[in-house]
């Protein structure tokens, strides 16, 4: 942590702002859902094959649990800088150009996520209200009929809002970063990709 100062380079894979730190912390617990979905899948197989009584709830439960983790994974990888990038140009320019590229990339990222958050607002709203404005919970429509759409659509909206904020916080950090700071290693060293 020798170069850790305001706006400076954090070690790769570490959250660089408080929001991302919170996301990374939640991720440590949310990932347990993968183990839960494995366990209930095995339960379904045992019930169906050995006891000839398939459950009505396992398929939709596992799908919902993985969908939650997939959506959250987007914010988690943003918090821990794990999203894959092609660094053909980035890796060959000096610190000053890099700083500007980082600022623009985070700004564009915030724009992309902001637009998606805006678009998913309508989707989330419709999962909770009928077109006439009455409250109702959208369900899957199966025999079990869980409220998974009403859970996942607002959750996706929430994640997109969080990702917008994450990008904005990253942009702020890059703006405040000293222009000479060697971010993600020396040019040409390929360190960025190893993060």
């Amino acid at each position, binding site marked *: 942590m020798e170069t850790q100062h305001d706006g400076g380079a954090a070690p790769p894979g570490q959250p660089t702002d408080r929001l991302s730190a919170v996301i990374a912390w939640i991720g440590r617990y949310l990932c347990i859902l993968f183990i839960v979905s494995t366990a209930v899948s095995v339960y379904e197989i045992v019930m*169906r094959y050995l006891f*000839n*009584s*398939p459950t*009505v709830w396992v*398929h*939709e439960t596992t799908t919902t649990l993985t969908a939650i983790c997939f959506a959250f994974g987007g914010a988690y990888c943003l918090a821990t800088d794990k999203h894959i990038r092609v660094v053909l140009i980035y890796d060959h320019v000096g610190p000053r150009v890099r700083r500007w590229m980082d600022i623009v990339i985070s700004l564009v990222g915030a724009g992309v996520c902001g637009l998606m958050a805006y678009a998913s607002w*309508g*989707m989330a709203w*419709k999962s909770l209200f*009928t*077109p*006439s404005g009455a409250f*109702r919970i*959208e*369900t*899957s*429509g*199966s*025999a*079990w*009929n869980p409220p998974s*759409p009403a859970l996942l659509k607002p959750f996706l909206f929430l994640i997109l809002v969080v990702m917008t904020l994450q990008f904005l916080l990253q942009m702020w950090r890059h703006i405040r970063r000293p222009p000479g700071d060697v971010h993600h290693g020396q040019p040409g060293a390929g360190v960025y990709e190893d993060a």
Partner: protein
Amino acid sequence: QGKGKTYELRFQSSDTSGALAFQIARDWAERVGKMSGGRIRIEMMPVGSVVEYSETLEAVGAGILQGHVTDSSYFTGKDPAFALIANPVGAWSDPNDMLNFFNYGGGREVYNQIVNPYGVQFIGASAAAVESIASRVPIDKVADLKGLKIRAPEGLVQSTFAAAGASPVNLPQSEVFTSLDKGVIEAADATTLATNDSMGLHDIAKHPLWPGFHSLPIVDISINKAIWDEMPEDLKTILTVSVNDLARDSVSRVAMMDKKVAAKLRARGDVTIHDWPLEERQKFRQIAQSQWAKFAERSPNAQKVYQALTAYLKDQGLL
């Protein structure tokens, strides 16, 4: 308002491009183009092209798509009324009973009351054939359904099979083939006899149930309401009348195809077609009808559908 205007409309079907139903829908789109002298141009796109099949109602309402050709059971989660109006299991023994309900029995009006708030206008209903069930084991009566591991889609169908003692398994269409092949499930409510056959289901499930008795889903042809409202009367009439022709075309071609495939299956020797006797069909229908009331309680719209449906069936002596 829309006089002299050309309408470029993108419709999404709930069928894959290889299905006969998709070809039929595409032929309809082409005929509408000719009938309107090119003033309506419909591009028919296969399932999943723009949005997933379960999202077309909102996409049409928002104007992303201009129309859809779909089985509206897929919207059951938005309103249980869709389940009841799109596939009232046990109500129709003949596609004409269903078409008459929509055209003359009040079905169209009730349905538009449900979809208009979504920004969608229901043009009319088409139908295919009562679907077949692909099965690895012989099923000849309601009692044979007990404990049967059967894949069934969402909506009333699944609930009815559960009420009949079967164990419905929730699998997506993409896993039907492999699961049936390996015996994870014993039977599948997939689609019509001919389409099941072209997927190769009868090579692995040699006891199809046909003619079907359980599922005759609506083929719902709807359009964005704002576009509909501004359309001149002649174009509206072309669309409405052409949907009646689509229904006739669809029912005939699907039935002919099913009969052809049934003859082929009978000739091949290793496949046994199971045709349920009338009394067993009646028993299954009674179980299904007990489910209607349950769905009717779930929303005000579902209640409206239930009343319109039972009124029509009583009027026609079908209940």
